């Protein structure tokens, strides 16, 4: 991936952004790096009874109470293997910080706007709802996560 980065950097990158990348199951996601507040290893959570299923619980982020949303469940993916601990990726949203539970954290990548494309029409609605677009990297596809939509559970409905 570092070669990717280097190659991309050498090209015209004015319109492209930097993305923090992460994995959820076999999907490779990216979030605008400025949106990411911090990354934490798995934290103890307080379960919230009666909350929507995608909400894993609440974590204490230095005195701030942050809601943790499991991206696997948000994307209607099968649950993690029992011993696999998710990582908290705390993102800034219009309504404060929200933690997204992801499988693994990747590098920060510079991407070229020229490789951007809208997500395909036939994408699963659960994924289409929160994937803004796709950057076609050399080795794989980088899915751009729309964080505002991801944390907006009301809009998720049962699409």
């Amino acid at each position, binding site marked *: 991936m570092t070669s990717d980065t280097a190659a991309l950097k050498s090209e015209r990158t004015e319109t492209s952004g930097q993305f923090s990348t992460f994995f959820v199951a076999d999907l490779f996601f990216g979030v605008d790096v400025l949106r990411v507040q911090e990354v934490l290893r798995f934290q103890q959570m307080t379960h919230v009874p009666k909350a929507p299923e995608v909400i894993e619980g609440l974590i204490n982020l230095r005195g701030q109470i942050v809601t943790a*949303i499991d991206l696997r469940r948000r994307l209607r993916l099968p649950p993690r293997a029992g011993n696999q601990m998710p990582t908290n990726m705390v993102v800034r949203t219009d309504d404060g910080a929200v933690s997204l539970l992801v499988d693994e954290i990747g590098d920060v990548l510079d991407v070229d706007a020229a490789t951007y494309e809208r997500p395909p029409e036939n994408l699963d609605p659960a994924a289409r709802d929160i994937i803004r677009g796709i950057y076609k990297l050399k080795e794989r596809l980088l899915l751009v996560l729309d964080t505002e939509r991801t944390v907006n559970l009301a809009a998720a409905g049962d699409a």
Partner: protein
Amino acid sequence: MQDQDVIREFLIESHENLSRLDQELVELEKRPQDTALLASIFRTIHTIKGTCGFFAFSTLERITHEAETLLSQLRDGKRKLTPSLISLVLETVDATRKVLAAIEASGEEGPERFEHIAERLRLAAQSPADAENQGGTDSTPPLPAEAQGVIGSSETTEGSKPEETVVKSSAVADANIRVGVGLLDKLMDLVGELVLTRNQILQFNTEREDAALNTTSQRLNLITTELQEGVMKTRMQPIGMVWNKLPRVVRDMAVALGKQILLEMDGADTELDRTIIEAIKDPLVHLVRNACDHGIEPPEVRARAGKPPHGRLTLRAYHEGGQVNIEIGDDGGGIDVARVKQKAVERGLLRSEQAEKLSDREALNLIFLPGFSTAQTVTNVSGRGVGMDVVKSNIEKIGGVVDVFSRPGEGATVKLKIPLTLAIIPGLVIASGGERFVIPQVSLLELIRLEGDSSEKHIEHVHGTPVYRRRGSLLPIAYLNQALGLKSAQRSDAVSMVVLQAEDRQFGLVVDGINDTQEIVVKPLGKQLKGLTEYAGATIMGDGRVALILDVLGIGQSAGVLTESCEQSRVAVQQKSQAGIEQQRLLLFRAGSFERLAVPLSLVARLEVFPRNAIEHAGGCHVVQYRNRILPLVPLQAVLEPDAPGQNQMADSVQVIVFNDGDRSIGVVVDQILDVAEEAVMVRQKSSRKGLLGSAVIGKRVTDFLDLNQVIHAATESWFEGTGGSGNGKRILVAEGSAFSRGLIRSGLDMAGYRVLEAANLDEAIRGMEQQPADVVVAALDLPPQGSSALLAAMRQRTEWQGIPILALADSAGQAQSSASQTAGFQGCQDKFDRGALLESVARLASAQAVPEAAPTSAEAEPACMAEER
């Protein structure tokens, strides 16, 4: 007390002014031609002089007055500015400071009179202007050398008289700084964090045996507590901030209402968190207005009651047990409990028999129900039935409590109990389903622990609903595990229960365990969880983990223990407020297997009980002699359930509902009269069963509406034919959207001998008319879809229907009169519930019509008058 406050204000303001004077005077020396600057200096001195005069500080007034005179000459250009004059003014400023310091220390001006300064100022002002100005000032000096040496700057002035002129900086002025609210809020947040960290350290400490850590954490504990209190104090504001606008409110109210009201305020310096001050502002004003409007009587009424003509409105605020109490009391007529109850019944907030059972105290709390107002008239100030419920909900929103006390004839007092702050609250930590939760202490009434074998026995079940006998009254119980869908704990031999108060109701919440009480910092939940009514927020516990704060009301509602009364009355009010919902007085009774039947009370003439031996037979019917006439009796059960067994036995006495129509009467025999209810009939379902109009929910129970007309028809066909109802079988089309109203109108017309066609909307009406034209059309103004005018227009378009009279029906007499514009073209407009007038109008219109083919009356009604053997 108050004077001191004002003087403090004066001191602060004067010190600010003097500092500015210093600056401006020095500036003026550099730019003597700057008239704007000079004018500003003049104004400042003038202000100080004015306030001194107000407080009768004569020394200050004298010297500032002289300085002002001098400055006015300078300002008007009568005198040229010289450095010596500036020095003189600066000296005046210093002298003023000294006097202010004396005032601050002792409250008085002190012995020094500063005569020499005043004298010099006077001389300077009197000396011949312009040409000899230099000499003028300098030649009249008690201390000329000094004044001379002073020329230049204020610093030198001080330098020349080091001990005296260097005035100690004022304690009052320096002790106050303006700080942005945002910074205070931020500080409060940080202290909240610190409290949490402190809690964590303390917990950590208990797990270790370390003397040094122990001492340090103790100190941390103390310091944090003090810091918390200190920061909280910075956000405190005296309640006087809100009160100071009340005198005006009261005065305006008194003038508007023609009353005399004295406002007394006690404890205006009681301090509250500023967020709370904000929250109680509106409720307070409302309560004061209420007291002026409803509480205090007009002077003449007061005079008659032997009270002084001016009413007394008292506001009191004081601290008590970590809370602030605010009392709004008046010496008016108090709250008339009987009228409150009566009003509540009239407004459909509760039933009359419920009202009777209420204690005076409970009855007083009725005024907090939405939609309640006892004001005889709606004035522009109050009496619209909104307000007290809003006051209550606003106060409860901030964790406060509202109470009302009344002494008839002597006045009423509303008491608010308000927490000091919102950010940090005491809470009880409980455990359930392996999780910890916090219950705000304000909602907590008591803790109950049921142990041993009896624990199961203590919780009893009513139709599957768990209840607990708490000091003689039943307490509904909810299980937190169930309410939140948590896994149940193992059965233990003890049950822990917290008794909670939600609004005006109480319930028990069974939890797995009760831990301890803690000061918690309330943090909001994220947007994703806002929809959950079960939680009021979250907090961070001593071990750093998050715990949810339960919303007592939300938990009660989701567990189903808080659904009725309060909510119901709210629903009822809402229903009522929508126009067109029929508010009916209904007679409830029982007959055969029908446990609850109803007829509109307006149709009922009398209720009678006849002994069995008074019942006779005539013409195959049961009859009784009643008021010198023969009253036919219809056993209701026989009509509704002709096949039911055992109806031949008559009890020793029979209950009879007597219906009148014109000069005829008929008695319907029922098993038992139950009640009279006034209800907005809400749910309706049309019945296909003979003798019934349909079902509705009355008093929370499903009740069948009797189709009186069918019952009577079925029983006594001859009753109609014998006397020949005025209708003579004319056809009436009733076009009305509401099935209930339609049924009512129909039954009235049926009884009068008309043949009735029903239509629920415009299409049905047209279709009905096409099949068989009616003699008279009766159409509701709000006939779906577009009102009765559409029907009128449709009918007037067809030649064959043009002559048919149409009567419009309004929901009330008021509407009937007021909607004249809507009723143009109709042959009249009637209140649909005024049966007599309606029948009269129909009869008038029907008889005006040419008589069409005579139709037989109710041919389909089967003769069901009981030919029973006894």
